């Protein structure tokens, strides 16, 4: 856990607004760009997947070129950009997939 960085983004300075903390798993080019396989992100209560994507791009500008083509999965299921995140969700950032031996 010590390798995880925590971002208090979108939270007021007093920390009084309700927040959700989500564990974000990164793969392939995003994992390499960020330099670690997971990050923790603190979001305002009710934040959507689209807002999470924006926060990741702000915290890691190097990911901004990759983020427009990713989709997200929550608890191992693909979700759309309007999906609202809950505290403790495991969110995976899924770049275009390319299993098998050729595209």
């Amino acid at each position: 856990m010590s390798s995880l960085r925590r971002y208090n983004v979108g939270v007021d300075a007093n920390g009084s607004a309700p927040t959700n903390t989500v564990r974000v798993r990164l793969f392939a080019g995003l994992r390499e760009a960020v330099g670690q396989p997971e990050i923790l992100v603190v979001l305002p209560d009710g934040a959507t997947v689209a807002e999470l994507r924006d926060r990741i791009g702000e915290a890691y500008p190097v990911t901004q070129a990759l983020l427009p083509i990713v989709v997200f999965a929550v608890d191992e299921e693909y979700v759309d950009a309007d999906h609202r995140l809950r505290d403790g969700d495991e969110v995976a950032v899924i770049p275009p997939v390319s299993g098998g031996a050729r595209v």
Partner: protein
Amino acid sequence: MFEVTRDPLDPAPLVAAVRRDESGAIALFYGVVRNENLGRRVQYLEYDAYPEMAVKKMNEVADEVRAKFAISDMGVLHRIGRLEIGETSLLVAVSSPHRAEAFEACHYAVDRIKQIVPIWKKEVWEDGSEWIEGYVPDVPGRTLSS
């Protein structure tokens, strides 16, 4: 049998797992690492996966295949990590009473695996490397615009 593994793939246990007494045919697909892509010489491939979700999506592909084709059973093994030229990255086995369904279902399964299973590959060339962007998986209500 649906697995993501770092170990070399062995088809024998997979074939044994999908065989049923009513199976008159088993189609077995190998995805193999080749030495070039789009005119560039590939030295090796590096695969990454979200293993728990990959296994879940492999099972969903199998559910789709069972709904479309009269198969007995199917299984999928995908290797991750560094793979050299000639090594097997993917094995898909489909058993069915008759061969036509086994061939068709295996073809369909391989296509769907490449579309929705969260696995990625990086091509490594002499002078660089790149994570290959294949398919953007279908998302319910798909509205991911930036």
